[in-house]
């Protein structure tokens, strides 16, 4: 009797979207608290910790990703409006952007071109298949845009989203040390470089270090979304033409 009660409860919990949504928020808040407690150490990145916690929970309870996503999609959905919301920091920083317009756009175009070709070339050289190479090209764009681009150029949208999140985590963890190593001092330069290489997750990290760096990173991720959407179809087509 008690056993069947528990069983019906389990069936309810394992199929209700409420569970996926709730565990996502609990995992994030746990990760967030840990991040605070360790003095915002880059290795306790909130996305990284949340993802690990959630995968452990799903594996232990033998839950499919699709079932989990029924609930988590309510959070995932907000990636659309948050992309539109990037217009606000862009607008607020517009005077700065106008002043530095040419260096910002040129350096971002250079970074995207060199980075994309390098990434696709490395992947091809080390034996990744074509779908992986194309999906990798959009890795440095914020997830919703990356998925949209991947769909248009023949990548795998869900794989691209994962690669984008991983790229963001790597950028957030290594970014500031690396830029210090390159002896970059200017916060506007740091912000632009972080946003262009590791989008929203890098930007979130930049905001915890310095508001101006964060604003530039936010600006850069918004511009990167636009530039990548325009450039990647051509870059990928060109790369595939040259490498056959």
């Amino acid at each position, binding site marked *: 009797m008690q056993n069947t009660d528990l069983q019906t409860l389990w069936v309810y919990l394992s199929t209700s979207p409420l569970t996926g949504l709730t565990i996502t928020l609990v995992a994030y808040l746990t990760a967030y608290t840990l991040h605070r407690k360790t003095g915002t150490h880059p290795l306790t990145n909130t996305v990284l910790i949340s993802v690990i916690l959630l995968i452990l929970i799903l594996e232990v309870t033998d839950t499919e990703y699709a079932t989990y996503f029924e609930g988590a999609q309510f959070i995932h959905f907000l990636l*659309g409006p948050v992309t539109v919301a990037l217009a606000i920091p862009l607008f607020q920083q517009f005077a700065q952007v106008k002043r530095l317009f040419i260096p910002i756009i040129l350096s971002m175009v250079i970074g995207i071109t060199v980075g994309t070709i390098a990434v696709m070339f490395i992947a091809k050289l080390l034996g990744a298949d074509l779908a*992986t190479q194309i999906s990798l090209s959009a890795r440095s764009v914020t997830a919703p845009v990356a998925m949209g681009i991947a769909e248009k150029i023949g990548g795998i949208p869900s794989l691209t989203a994962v690669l984008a999140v*991983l790229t963001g985590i790597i950028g957030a963890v290594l970014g500031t040390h690396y830029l210090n190593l390159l002896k970059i001092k200017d916060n506007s330069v740091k912000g632009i470089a972080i946003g262009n290489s590791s989008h*929203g997750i890098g930007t979130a990290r930049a905001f915890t270090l310095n508001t101006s760096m964060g604003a530039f990173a936010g600006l850069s991720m918004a511009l990167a979304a636009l530039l990548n959407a325009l450039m990647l179809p051509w870059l990928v087509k060109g790369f595939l033409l040259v490498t056959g």
Partner: protein
Amino acid sequence: MKANKSSGIEFLFGMTALLIFQLLGEVSVRLLDLPVPGPVAGLLYLLVLLLAMGKFKRPAPESLEQSSLALLNHLSLLFVPAGVGVMVHFQRLEEEWLPITVALFLGVLITMGTTALSMQFLMRFFDKKAKKSS
């Protein structure tokens, strides 16, 4: 009593505006077959509107600022569901772990490095040019 800002109606207005612009973006991209994703088109439309309002010395509406900041402050959270999707691709990642790992790490370092160094160079270059011409 003054209007209570914590009633959340500002946030609701802002969210609605963001969704309307996303919708405009998605619809126009599909109708005109534009090469950019819908939310990016929505971002552009909103930016153009804000800049046009700025011409008449109007700041960004507070409701938009509030809801945008609320979303942007917890940007990390929004990436979590997509990140968990890594479990669907475990097999591909197992087969291609080497190219993917190397490409991701070097991709970040190369993109970040070339962007930072070229921007630093270009800023100095344009600074010098500006000083010379003045």
